[in-house]
């Protein structure tokens, strides 16, 4: 039997203006959180991860574009959080690359796969970040603590993704 050729799913590239608009929206949101909402629960919110999910899932950005935007978003997150430069840049770039990889296999922007895709991307972001923190920086956290933070972060960011999806639609 002839092997079935896998169809390469082509996604249309979004306009740069559209991406810039979304980016500005999330940047303002991040600034808002920085200046006006200094609360402990804000630590669980990763606005730039949510932006990246919007970029790859809703706007369907792929390839180098998504990598560069991911890198940029990560760098900004490092600057706003006051942490070591490069940690978030690394994790967001990895998120973007993963979305490219998955995107070649399945249609992640389809309604049924949006939420699972977003959750997967958030988990990837958290995993890569804590890997870097523990290996390169030397910060050791207990597994239970790590898992509980991860669960809360994924849940919070997923909710924010859904809310902003509804708003920006």
């Amino acid at each position, binding site marked *: 039997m002839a092997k079935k050729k896998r169809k390469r799913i082509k996604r249309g590239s979004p306009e740069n203006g559209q991406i810039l608009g979304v980016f500005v929206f999330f940047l303002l949101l991040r600034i808002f959180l920085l200046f006006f909402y200094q609360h402990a629960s804000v630590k669980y919110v990763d606005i730039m991860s949510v932006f990246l999910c919007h970029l790859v899932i809703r706007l369907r950005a792929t390839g180098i574009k998504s*990598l560069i935007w991911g890198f940029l978003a990560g760098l900004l997150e490092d600057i706003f959080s006051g942490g070591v430069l490069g940690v978030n840049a690394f994790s967001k*770039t990895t998120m973007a690359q993963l979305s490219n990889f998955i995107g070649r296999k399945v249609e992640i922007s389809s309604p049924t796969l949006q939420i699972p895709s977003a959750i997967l991307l958030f988990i990837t972001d958290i995993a890569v970040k804590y890997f870097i923190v523990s290996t390169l920086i030397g910060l050791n956290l207990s597994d239970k603590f790590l898992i509980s933070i991860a669960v809360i972060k994924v849940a919070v960011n997923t909710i924010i993704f859904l809310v902003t999806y509804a708003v920006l639609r």
Partner: protein
Amino acid sequence: MKRETAAYIILVLISAALIVARVKVTTIAQLPEKVATKIVYLFESVKRESGEKVRSIVEANRILKENQRLEEENIKLKQKITLCKTLYQENLKLKKLLGIKKHYKIKSIAARVLGWTGDYWQLRFMLDKGSKDGVKEGMAVAGSNGIVGQIRKVYKNYSVAMSVVDPDFSVHVEDFRSKVRGIARGNGRTLNVNYVLPSMDVKVGDLLVATGIGGIFPTGLYIGRVIKVSKSLEEKFLNIVAVPTDRLENNKFVLIMGEVIGKEKKEKNKKR
């Protein structure tokens, strides 16, 4: 895909390099704190300055009101002071009158000068005592500094007194210093002392007192002070001009001097 992978690797390497270099950018992260501090400082300074300005406005307003109140109080106090001074002067005059009353054992009646009667010369004044108080026509009227007039007309409740400078007024006087005697008459403005020979010793500044002749004007009470003494070749007597020591219109209270107390008793005994 190759380009994509290469881009991913490059970006990852850049991130790793940044991590290894341990570059921290804290300026943005600390920005809220700095901005908040500055905003709070700004608000505090505005609040402090505006508070001070409001306080100063309120204080200025309070000071203005206080100033106004003090000014009104000052005016009232000044009026009181003027009144006190007037009362003090009046008190002095009344004490002098009382002294006259005590010194001369004469039945005297204290009377208030009500005002000018409206005569042409402005020399006649109304007093608030009349016949029902024992006032009689011709009685002497004394002020705090001497004789001021004579009762001219008497009514039941009031009387009219003429001033010493009234043309109808005359009194027997004596120079207090040289004891030279004459008759003083009013001329509307001053007193003319008549029947003084040129050889008599009368000088400007001499005090003229009543002699008591006639029993109307008590002896020794001041009448006037000499202001002019002149001799005329044609006239037989000296031309002496005097001014009264006191004026009726300058007194609020006067004494109407009656008969000597001893003399009154003698007359009563005579009638019996």
